[in-house]
């Protein structure tokens, strides 16, 4: 306790300022990444108000020329120019990755909660949920996508009402696949969290006259879902990366675009390095976001000593 008021040592102050520099760099990189994505999207959406659709936001030649004038960076000037030239394609692919991941995750959550609840509190329905999760978790995701796309040819059944939302109907097939698969994984994480809600909470709910379902809704879920956030974040991160499998059923998301560019230009290493950085930016954003969410909904004393 006494040490709380002790002045920081030099070493501590240096460490602290290192940390804030690191944080600053991370925030700046994040702002650059999302700023680039947002401006690219707005530009496309408004039909090319800033630069013609399909053109980079900054001219590649200008980037190359600028870097060529800086001694340490001159060697990379040509590569940088090439990457900038590819940014419009990468931006479109990244957006699709973001949308597919976000929509699948949200829809999957809606399915996962009842799945988890029936697993924990159901009788017959517990077996149905178990069968579902085991089937979806026990078979390869890529095989599931192939069944939906090639096997069942679902792309031709996409309802007219939503078929125009994306340029290609197959995007909906990918979303369906990731939703069904992700729901199974999310349900497992949520199930574990629900099981850690104390029995006495349910007893207390029943004792004031709430039905079993009402108790689950008003008492168990608000606690269990909070406990689930850290492990659920894993599924979020996995889905960002697994969404690249959509490329195998011709969805033009980030991985698919990168693969195409690489095949045309043979610049495999450079393109996949840049693509890797994009995925990293998405993953870091997701985990930072979920840490924020967790802090935001935190309740004193709840789940404090049950970090998994």
């Amino acid at each position, binding site marked *: 306790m006494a040490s709380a008021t002790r002045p920081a040592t030099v070493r501590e102050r240096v460490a602290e300022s290192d940390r804030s520099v690191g944080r600053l760099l991370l925030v700046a990189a994040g702002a650059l990444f999302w700023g680039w994505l947002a401006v690219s999207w707005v530009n496309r959406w408004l039909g090319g108000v800033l630069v013609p659709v399909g053109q980079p936001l900054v001219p590649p030649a200008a980037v190359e020329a600028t870097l060529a004038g800086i001694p340490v960076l001159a060697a990379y000037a040509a590569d940088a120019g090439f990457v900038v030239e590819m940014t419009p394609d990468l931006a479109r692919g990244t957006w699709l990755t973001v949308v597919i991941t976000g929509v699948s995750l949200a829809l999957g959550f809606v399915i996962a909660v009842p799945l988890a609840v029936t697993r924990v509190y159901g009788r017959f329905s517990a077996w149905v949920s178990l069968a579902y999760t085991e089937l979806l978790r026990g078979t390869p995701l890529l095989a599931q996508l192939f069944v939906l796309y090639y096997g069942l040819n679902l792309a031709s059944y996409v309802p007219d009402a939503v078929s125009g939302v994306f340029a290609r109907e197959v995007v909906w097939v990918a979303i369906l696949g990731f939703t069904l698969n992700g729901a199974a994984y999310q349900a497992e994480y949520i199930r574990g969290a629900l099981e850690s809600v104390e029995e006495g*909470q349910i*007893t207390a709910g*029943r*004792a*004031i*006259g*709430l039905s079993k379902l009402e108790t689950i809704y008003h*008492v168990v879920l608000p606690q269990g879902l909070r406990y689930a956030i850290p492990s659920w974040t894993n599924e979020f991160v996995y889905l960002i990366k697994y969404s690249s499998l959509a490329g195998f059923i011709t969805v033009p998301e980030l991985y698919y675009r990168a693969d195409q560019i690489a095949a045309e230009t043979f610049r495999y290493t450079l393109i996949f390095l840049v693509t890797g950085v994009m995925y990293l930016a998405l993953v870091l954003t997701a985990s930072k976001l979920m840490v924020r969410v967790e802090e935001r909904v935190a309740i004193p004393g709840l789940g404090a000593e049950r970090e998994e």
Partner: protein
Amino acid sequence: MSDDDFLRVTDVSKWYGEEQVLHDVSFEMDRGDVTVLIGPSGSGKSTMLRCVNRLAEAQEGSILLDGEEVLSPDLDVDELRREVGMVFQGFNLFAHLTAVGNVALGPRRVLGLSETEARERAEDQLERVGLADQLDSYPAELSGGQQQRVGIARALAMEPKLMLFDEPTSALDPELIGEVLEVMHGLVDEGMTMLVVTHEMSFARAVADEIVFLDDGRVVERGPPEQLFERPEEERTGRFLERIASHD
């Protein structure tokens, strides 16, 4: 044994699997009575309480509450629980809700009061148990004694006609027991009908109309506190009371 007993428990038997934990338990209470259940750990006190609000299912016997058969398969259990408040040894406060949230949940979701009405009722009940200054505290921010008082307020907010207390002070540090007993004394004075499991013998002596001594799932002896404490008829009762007294 008049016909207008408010609560009449008759020959209640209960098994958990093969193990019989209640053997033909009988006792009765008038409106406004305080009955204290005592007995060694594992003697079936909690189980008996839980049979009254159907958190546990008795297989045999009858429990008449205000003339209605509690054990009837047709009974609306949630309706029964609206009218019977319960206070737990471990408090069991809803960990994600503030004191007000804990107390308001029943009125809001079970009785269907509006958000404001439920909150007002919760504030009134918390004031009643002396917690007007802790309305927005979460359970983890309250002492054990405060938590248990929230637990009592939560039960009272349903305006129950019978209150069940299952060892309400057993989990508390000695210095926090008094504030909870004080609230319970207040309820007795207001005429609340209370069925209480407790080892607080001075409380039992002061407020109980009848003491029921359970051992091994059987009623060994029952009677007014003066009789049971001063002149127990059964040897087992005397031995149990001595053991309890030596712990104090």
